[in-house]
């Protein structure tokens, strides 16, 4: 099914099941521990041996020699994979560093060997006995120093590194009110619940990987390229995934080394990347340094806006595109965005939930708060005045497909009680707490990607949906079932959804908040094809057929789906193919974040008291799972504001706090009640579902609302995240004498 003109009325509009806060259909399997995860596939890969990864102890250099003899002789050891015996390996296009290093070493904890043994304990023990003689080389680990050598990176996903419209310098020089500030964000770790894990088994030259991966079709291709074998010989299976946040978008060392290990010992092998290895072995969200200049009239209307971003990555890597939202969010005739990329020999940077916007909004939305104060305007009003209904770089000929930022700002402010905020900072006390309120806009691009699905109906009228789409905790199973049930006129419990298997039609996968909208559109396409087939079987013209109550009806006639499917059942497959609507219309999701914090007058401890937000992201397919995504993302935004940071040791070139005791993410006690309001919206240019993505919107701006609330509470403006006690003390807390 092509989607190249805006959607008209369609069966999804019935709203009988789509748009209902349906419970997760996989919920019972998850909470009873019967949902199978990659490391626990004893059912399908019995007798698997255990692999343990040996990571590099240096950040850059060469392996002079490896001595495996002691490890090989250790109890239970079945084999050891290294670069020397793995054979020639390619590299996937999405990997920057090699997943198996050696003799060259590209980063700390890069996998250099896999030790395989009969038990996990034996493998882990023997891994300690691998002796590696290193020839270290000087690396570059300090973004602040290296950014001076940053260069312009190539366009990423069709988006250029730099954009320039009008005469920024002239307009900024003339502006009545100017903001010119720098902000910095640290490296972040995804810290998803399930570590990277794979069980691998070979059958002749056919490889099966039960793995934790967000993008099945991509990763089949990447594995084929890495191993140099045909894609057809590889099967990836990932029915359940314990979170990803982008960490599992690509092939990682667990999958490659499990495959190599299983080949070497002729037996299934499973590999998990241990928690303390994850931050340095896998990818992370890169640190940024950002400069923002805003030039506005006294009325707050922006005439000049510039956002420049510096980040670093391994040679051949990519930038953190943190200026992305600045191209689309606010008006202004004179504009600059620029990204510069430095070479760093730290572990590989890559996508983490809302790459670009998540950290870009931490800077832009604080700059907007600063502009509001400089203009003497309410921050909500400032944003309303700078709303723009078209792509401000392209002009009015490229309108937004739908944009309800202003509605979100107004509804969110009202729900939160924003008018109670005292605009003068440092004024509100509640016992030992200084209390402040802050807000920020939310913005995240809406991306659509072609997506396929297969639908079957059996003789009992039971519907099965199959696609390689993944559910990474997002609720995909449920919205797939809702979509098929809506189109075919059956109940949700009459639908079985099977996901995450490369034998199923290739889907959009889970990433960039494109998954829900794109993959349900794929199911919609297949379900509409099934409708045509059923009508044909029933002998009803498709335009006269109605699909209700498990029946195909025409006038007062009806036939059950099961009877039409017959004993052999019916199957159809289709995919949604997106045309150029995303080019003709700017597509994005919007919202408004509000936050109230307390800051201890003496110790500068920051505690969030309330968070609230209003969001517009097209049709909300399932308000329960959508709310779940948004509050999770708001929580992650709070973490970025207040505590999350990988600490770089610039001497050894690694992330020091590489376990969950030292890399802090919010716990329940940090997060109070969160109110989420969805603004009604249907986007007919986004997909036939009229939905948009919502999985990442909630993180974009959430941290800035926290930061602005800290400023409102204390009068101290921090621009270097996270906003920790030491920085507040250094900047002048306490503001009240002891």
């Amino acid at each position, binding site marked *: 099914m092509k989607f190249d003109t805006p959607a008209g009325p369609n069966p999804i509009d019935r709203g009988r099941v789509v748009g209902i806060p349906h419970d997760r259909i996989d919920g019972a399997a998850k909470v009873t521990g019967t949902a199978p995860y990659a490391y626990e596939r004893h059912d399908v890969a019995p007798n698997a041996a255990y692999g343990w990864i040996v990571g590099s102890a240096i950040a850059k250099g060469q392996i002079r020699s490896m001595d495996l003899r002691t490890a090989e002789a250790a109890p239970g050891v079945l084999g050891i994979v290294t670069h020397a015996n793995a054979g020639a390996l390619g590299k996937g296009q999405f990997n920057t560093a090699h997943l198996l290093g050696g003799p060259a070493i590209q980063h700390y904890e890069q996998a250099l060997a896999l030790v395989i043994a009969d038990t996990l304990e034996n493998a882990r*023990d023997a891994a300690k006995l691998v002796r590696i003689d290193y020839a270290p080389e000087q690396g570059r680990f300090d973004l602040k120093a290296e950014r001076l050598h940053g260069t312009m990176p190539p366009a990423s996903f069709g988006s250029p590194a730099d954009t320039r419209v009008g005469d920024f310098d002239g307009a900024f020089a003339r502006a009545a009110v100017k903001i010119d500030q720098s902000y910095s964000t640290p490296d972040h770790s995804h810290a998803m619940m399930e570590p990277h894990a794979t069980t691998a088994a070979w059958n002749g030259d056919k490889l099966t990987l039960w793995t934790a991966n967000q993008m099945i079709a991509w990763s089949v291709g990447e594995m084929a390229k890495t191993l140099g074998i045909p894609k057809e010989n590889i099967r990836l299976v990932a029915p359940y995934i314990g979170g990803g946040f982008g960490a599992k978008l690509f092939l990682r060392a667990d999958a490659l080394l499990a495959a190599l290990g299983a080949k070497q010992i002729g037996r299934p092998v499973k590999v998990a990347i241990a928690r303390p290895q994850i931050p340095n072995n896998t990818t992370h969200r890169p640190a940024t340094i950002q400069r923002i200049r805003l030039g506005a009239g006294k009325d707050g209307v922006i005439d000049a806006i510039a956002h420049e971003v510096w980040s670093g990555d391994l040679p051949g890597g990519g930038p953190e595109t943190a200026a992305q939202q600045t191209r689309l969010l606010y008006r202004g005739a004179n504009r600059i965005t620029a990204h510069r990329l430095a070479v760093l020999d730290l572990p590989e940077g890559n996508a983490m939930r809302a790459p670009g916007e998540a950290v870009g909004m931490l800077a832009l939305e604080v700059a907007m708060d600063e502009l509001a104060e400089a203009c003497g305007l309410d921050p909500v009003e400032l944003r309303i005045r700078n709303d723009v209904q078209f792509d401000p770089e392209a002009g009015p000929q490229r309108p937004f497909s739908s944009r309800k930022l202003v509605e979100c700002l107004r509804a969110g402010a009202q729900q939160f009680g924003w008018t109670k905020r005292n605009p003068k900072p440092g004024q509100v006390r509640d016992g030992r707490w200084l209390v402040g309120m802050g807000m920020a806009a939310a913005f995240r691009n809406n991306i659509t990607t072609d997506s396929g699905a297969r639908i079957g109906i059996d003789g009992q009228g039971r519907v099965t949906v199959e696609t390689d789409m993944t559910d990474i905790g997002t609720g995909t199973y449920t919205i797939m079932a809702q979509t098929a049930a809506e189109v075919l006129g059956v109940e949700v419990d009459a639908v079985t959804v099977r996901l995450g298997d490369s034998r199923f039609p290739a889907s959009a996968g889970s990433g960039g908040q494109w998954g829900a909208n794109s993959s349900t559109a794929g199911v919609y396409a297949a379900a509409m094809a099934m409708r045509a087939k059923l009508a044909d079987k029933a002998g009803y013209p498709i335009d006269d057929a109605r699909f209700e109550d498990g029946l195909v009806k025409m006038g007062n006639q009806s036939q059950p789906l099961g009877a039409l499917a017959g004993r052999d059942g019916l199957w159809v497959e289709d995919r949604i193919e997106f045309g150029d609507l995303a080019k003709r219309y700017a597509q994005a999701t919007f919202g408004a974040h509000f936050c109230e914090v307390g800051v201890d007058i003496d110790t500068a401890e920051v505690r969030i008291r309330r968070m609230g937000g209003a969001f517009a992201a097209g049709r909300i397919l399932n308000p329960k799972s959508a709310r779940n995504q948004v509050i999770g993302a708001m929580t992650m935004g709070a973490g970025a504001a207040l505590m999350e940071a990988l600490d770089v040791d610039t001497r050894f070139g690694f992330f020091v706090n590489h376990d969950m005791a030292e890399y802090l993410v919010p716990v329940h006690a940090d997060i109070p009640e969160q109110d989420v309001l969805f603004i009604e919206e249907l986007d007919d240019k986004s997909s036939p579902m009229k939905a948009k993505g919502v999985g990442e919107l909630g993180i974009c701006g959430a941290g800035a609302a926290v930061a602005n609330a800290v400023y409102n509470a204390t009068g101290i403006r921090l621009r270097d995240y996270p906003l920790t006690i*030491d920085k507040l003390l250094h900047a002048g807390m306490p503001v009240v004498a*002891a």
Partner: protein
Amino acid sequence: MKAFTYERARSVEAAVKAAASVQSARFIAGGTNLLDLMKLQIETPAHLIDVNHLGLDKIEPTQEGGLRIGALVRNTDLAADQRVRRDYAVLSRALVAGASGQLRNKATTGGNLLQRTRCPYFYDTRMPCNKRRPGSGCGAMQGMSRSLAIVGVSDACIAQNPSDMAVALRLLDAQVETMAQGGAKRTIPLADFHRLPGDTPQVDNALQPGEMILSVTLPKPIGGIHVYRKVRDRASYAFALVSVAAVFGQNGQARFAFGGVAPKPWRTDGADAAASQGAKAVAEAALAGARTTPHNDFKKALLRQTLASLYRQQEAQA
């Protein structure tokens, strides 16, 4: 984890005897720290002696009017004990400020005293660390040291003691009762139990090889207002940046012990003597001779501010 042998001791005497007879044996109680360290091969005992079932899980009154806390009393049970909550509230408050509910259910009184530092360079076995590998150098001093100690440190080591419970015990002048090899019992004041690193940072405490903690005793209650204030980067389940255990008495008298700032629960006579002069004076006395890094220098101000917060609360309640 190195392969190890395991036995469940039948009596305290048998446990101590077993520890004497096997090289590099360790007692295991809750295992909440030891097992993690074994997985990383920071601890590599050849033999584990399980002391969980020796009847050391009781809290009893002493003849002196205090309490004897068995070494195997779980943190959760100790924190919830009515006598502790009534007479030693600072201990109860310190305990619930530590770790998580699940960990406190498992962790024991004796084990908590033996938990090792949270210095990240101690935990990464590829990094230099004088505590883990004597003579290898200190990775932290010129590295990331934000969480580490600022007082009582040495040229060899700036690792902090991460315990909350021990800070309260130090404040209460607790004593540690042990049985050494050969069955002899001795009593070690908590003040002398943990060691400063000096040039042997690998030795955390005063226990001799094979010596086992039997109990911790508290002297008779001292009254006063008991406070434990822990300051950290998130609201729960994080180690202290700084913590203050305090008992406020009459006429401006108070005693203080501090966590997160030193290789051991930190207490100075000077700090107690300065109590009537307020937060700034107490902090200065507590941190006399402090040696900070650019990353952890803020702890000086934070300790002062944490004390200021406690004083402010006392005044508000007075």
